[in-house]
């Protein structure tokens, strides 16, 4: 689960990390009021709150939002109002959002901080080493977006221990690498330990401060912040679960999430229902190799509830992009007959008006096939994944 910058900053500030003074606004009037607070002297930064990085270099789809990106430095309170008005409701596209972009439902108004230098700091899980790693990078002439792609090996990597603070010699190493003055030593120690502690206590999977600013006084301040949380650990963080912003997700994604299924949308025409990410990827690869794109896939995982499965199948059947449905289930934990029951129940509710090809393998396969055959619905049954894909493409061409 991802959260917005202003929410991430608030969490980091609870761990001793300094953040610029600011407030979140849902209307231009609110934005102007925040800018008028005595603690915010200006200039100000008006920041579009969407859950993506690289907002500064992004662009808005709507012309009325202006040609500047999603982070705008403004010099007057009046302009805080104007820029907020332009961005609210507009759609911001960044390298991380994809071409559809994300709608801006609120902005963050922040005091502009004068800094003498900036750096990148992030913590993520190293999957191969099975450790947490703190990543620190200078940002002298390049953005982290460029460094991450072209020279990731130049980035300083500090392995962190789960139950211990960052060691003094590690802090010193970062200080040296960033060529910071000794008066930043204490601030840096508080900063990196704050990130580390927040990561562990809040069950994060990624924390990023891009950039952190170094002030003349030696103080370190988080100019931006991103946190992703572990969905599987949300059960022990009710406070974090509440921050979920449904505005960022489509209606169908939300429905799928309700049943703990994963659902992703793409630009093609085939809706896939699968029971694992691997089989979803392989099916998409195979469809693409035959010139057909995927509209969406729903992964029902090890689902064992017939009604939930039916609801999941309905999500696919009601996606207007979908011109054909491929159901590819390899039952182990999941029993194929539950899927067959789910298909019938979903079809009886919303109707089946596009070709549907089913391929079952594994647990209770024969029983599942019998259920579908007895139904007399125009469902095509295939024995292998490739046969299923071929039969679906053929049926889609016929129904054109």
């Amino acid at each position, binding site marked *: 689960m991802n959260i917005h910058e202003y929410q991430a900053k608030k969490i980091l500030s609870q761990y001793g990390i300094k953040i610029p003074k600011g407030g979140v606004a849902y209307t231009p009037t609110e934005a102007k009021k925040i800018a008028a607070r005595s603690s915010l002297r200006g200039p100000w930064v008006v920041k579009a709150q969407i859950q*993506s990085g690289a907002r500064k270099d992004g662009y808005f789809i709507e012309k009325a939002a202006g040609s500047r990106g999603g982070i705008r430095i403004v010099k007057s309170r009046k302009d805080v109002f104007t820029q907020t008005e332009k961005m609210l409701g507009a759609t911001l596209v960044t*390298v*991380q*959002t994809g071409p559809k972009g994300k709608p801006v439902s609120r902005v963050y108004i922040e005091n502009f901080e004068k800094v003498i230098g900036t750096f990148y700091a*992030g913590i*993520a*899980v*190293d*999957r*191969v080493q*099975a*450790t*947490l*790693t703190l990543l620190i990078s200078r940002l002298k002439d390049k953005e982290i*977006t460029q460094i*991450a*792609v*072209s020279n*990731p*090996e130049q*980035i300083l990597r500090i392995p962190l221990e*789960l139950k211990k603070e960052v060691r003094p010699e590690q802090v010193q190493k970062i200080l040296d690498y960033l060529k910071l003055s000794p008066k930043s030593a204490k601030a840096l120690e508080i900063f990196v330990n704050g990130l580390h502690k927040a990561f562990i206590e809040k*069950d994060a999977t*990624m924390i*990023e401060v*891009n950039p952190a600013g170094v002030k003349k006084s030696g103080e370190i301040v988080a100019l931006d912040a*991103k946190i*992703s949380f*572990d*969905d*599987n*650990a949300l059960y*022990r963080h009710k406070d974090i679960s509440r921050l979920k912003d449904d505005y960022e997700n489509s209606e169908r994604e939300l429905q799928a999430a309700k049943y703990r299924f994963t659902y*992703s949308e*793409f630009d093609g025409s085939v809706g896939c229902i*699968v029971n*694992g*990410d*691997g089989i979803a*990827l*392989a099916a*998409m*690869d*195979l*469809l*693409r*190799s035959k010139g057909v794109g*995927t509209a969406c896939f729903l992964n029902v*995982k*090890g689902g064992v509830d017939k009604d939930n499965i039916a609801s999941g199948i309905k999500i696919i059947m009601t996606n207007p992009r979908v011109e054909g449905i491929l159901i590819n289930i*390899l*039952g*182990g*934990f999941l029993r194929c007959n539950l899927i067959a029951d789910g298909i019938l129940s979903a079809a009886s509710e919303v109707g089946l008006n596009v070709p549907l090809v089913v391929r079952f*393998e*594994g647990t209770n*396969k024969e029983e599942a096939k019998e259920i579908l055959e007895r139904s007399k619905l125009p469902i095509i049954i295939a024995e*292998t*994944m*490739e046969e299923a894909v071929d039969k679906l493409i053929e049926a889609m061409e016929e129904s054109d």
Partner: protein
Amino acid sequence: MSILVNKETKVICQGITGTQATFHIRRSLDYGTNVVAGVTPGKGGETHLGLPVFDSVAEAKAATGGTASIMYVPAPYVKDAVKEAVEAELDLAVCIAEGVPVKDMLEIKAMLKGSKTRLIGPNTPGIITPAQARLGTFPENIMQSGNIGIISRSSTLTYEAILEVNQAGLGESTVVGLGDDLLIGMDFVDVLELFHKDKATKAIVMIGQSGSTFEETAAHYYKNLSRKKPLYAFVAGNAIPFGHKMGYAGEIISNGYVSVQDKKDALEDAGVIVFDKINDIHTELQKL
């Protein structure tokens, strides 16, 4: 022969009284798996599926000599369940649960370091040696005994790989589902090493997918092996576009944007036979 489990392996089931455990242990027993005991805290002394139930793994091991555990415990309890298995010094623990928190896995990985216990999973169909032992949720009806080892990150594609082996007129020595959570127990290298030592395994099929660098690590390991068994690989995820994520930290960790093509290239460079379509594997296996 086989790796990790065979018909002699004495298996303990953690969480045996649950619904899923009951369904799958009954099937594993019917398949001939040597399940000797179950563990459910608070239900020690009872009998379930004809097996003695103990309060702890240590008690179950002491009473029955069990050396491997199959756990059907829900995600929030996985950390404690693995801890018990490690402390009881079992050889193998197989974890089926999906949704284990990353932080718990970080602690589990730290526990496993230097311990006697190997972990398979979580979020995996487990491990199966045809006609000998089934620890997990594998559809046993599709298995055939043979001399092809299979390792896969994806559960569902494991079954696909098994069907390919069968279609080639061959069978499996042992099949291991690694799981595809952010952090997992055994990885490709661990299992490749065992398959290379196993006399009954003549060739290996590995199924990778996008994300992380597990395939690259495997390619590096295989390239440096002096005696190689034929290795066939499929990597899923070519059609998935980049993006749909937040931040860069993940990419930096894995040294840049690793694409499925990069993984395939690394494997090919190491001498692995790489397929673009998983359903092409059987034609190549037939040449064995």
